[in-house]
């Protein structure tokens, strides 16, 4: 299957990934291969076959509405690359005018 660079750029944007021009070349090739493989699979007639979503047959796995605190703010923040005592810190999402 043939893809173009625009598609690669779009995918990269959706994944919020920065991709260099050099990487684009190899990524295009990889994705074309993956999709060609999918095309092969698509040749199979799967009409009447339910898509497999779940790996077991469980249904109705529910929980009672009972409060249980398992972590404190410090633990919640622990793995974040950037934080202060109480908040996660991220790159500014909007510009203030």
């Amino acid at each position, binding site marked *: 299957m043939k893809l173009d660079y625009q598609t690669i750029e779009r995918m990269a944007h959706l994944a919020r990934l920065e991709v260099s021009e050099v990487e684009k070349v190899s990524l295009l090739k990889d994705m074309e291969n993956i999709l060609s493989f999918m095309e092969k699979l698509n040749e199979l007639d799967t009409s009447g076959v339910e898509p497999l979503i779940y790996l077991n047959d*469980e249904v109705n796995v*529910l929980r009672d*509405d009972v409060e249980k605190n398992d972590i404190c703010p410090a633990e919640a923040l622990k793995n974040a690359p950037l934080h202060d005592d*109480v*908040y996660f810190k991220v*790159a500014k*999402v909007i510009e*203030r005018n």
Partner: protein
Amino acid sequence: MTEKVLAKYDLVIGLEIHAQLLTKTKIFSSDSASFGGDPNDHTSIISVGLPGTLPKVNEKVVAYAVKMGWATNCTINKHNRFDRKNYFYADLPKGYQITQDELPICQKGFITIQVKDNSEKNIRINRIHMEEDAGKSMHDRDDKYSLIDLNRAGVPLIEIVSEPDLRSAEEAAAYVTEVRKLVRYLDICDGNMEEGSLRCDANISVKLKGTDEYGARCEVKNLNSIRNLQRAVNYEFKRQVKLVEKGERIEQNTLNFNASTGVTTVLRSKEMANDYRYFPEPDLPPLDLAEEWIQKLKAELPELPEQRVKRYLKDFELSHYNASLLTADRGVADFFEELVLYTPYYKSAANWVTGPLQSYANEKGKDLSILRSSLKPISDIIKLVEELKINYTAAVQQLFPALMAKENQSIPQLVHDLNLFIDTDDDELTGFIDEVVSRYPEKVMEYHKGKKGVLGLFMGDIMKISKGKIDPKSANKLLLEKLKSLK
């Protein structure tokens, strides 16, 4: 632009309402779902989105969604699935929101609203689905960074999506009012729009009357009050008609309404629209709701406002206006029903509840339940007014405040102490009337020449010098007799 131009067009509105559910815990984890708390204190390994953690559905969320479905005449879908809606935003730690896309829990219902001429209109509900809320971003606390609080991440929401059946800002307002009333009656959401527990997005388009061709729709986000919803709708109607009249195209954009300027601005263009790439959530097994369980929830529904209005019209012979006013709030309606256990004067009771009693509670910053211990004396006051033993104004301005100021006082004692009994002694009454009439001989002449408006002046003075102790009805009667005798 003239009203005449606007009148050529229909306004078409569909609303998406998000209601935060009043559960103790979040939709997929056991951390607190309550509003407030220290930042990032209501969190868990699931709501901060740590890898390898598995969500688990809160049964109460499903129950609340089903109840809302019943209350809005929906079909309840027994087979339910959750889906992932993929997008990146810093307050959505997993990179996707768990929602329901293809198989929402409720579909195809309707809500009845009252329109202008008191007639009813059914607004169709397309769907109600369950989903998780995102965290909160703060952009102005820090120069360099946005700060994130994940207390709200994973708080349960239901999204109620209407069909584009609303045709005016008033209808949109009536619809939101009705939804808010329903979630409050069901006790599944506090309905507070300012705090964001009930949020409203509006899809707005215009079409030439008589045609079936709908214009491109614009979605206005985050309307945080019914008034702002109405302002945004009216603004968009004019803006879109103006563009169509100029022969321009309406861009299908996502808009933001600025409450201080009253203007909508583009938040996202169609080109910038997200591609959410929905797919089934493999971490949550599907739900197969048992018929017995959903019927049990139906049986648990409280009497809803519409049903109450009908009952009040029938059992208490109230006006439609009074019945709607009382049932607008479940607490008010409940209080009224407790009060009428003590008094047969239903109409007076209704007026007392929505008038002076409600005002008193509002002043105290409380709800009517603070008056629950005074139902008996309040009914005594109503009785005295109905029997014309005391004057209504005196009852509201003197007797009721006195009752509130002194606990455990008997009403007859208070009336006696305040000297409020209407003088049935016609002599004293005639005295007041004679005095007032003799003050204004020229007004008496005007009256006899046919100027009936001067009666108000006489009555005002009579009530003043009698200090509200006399019954206006008999005073009026005696005054007319007096004036007649002077002719």
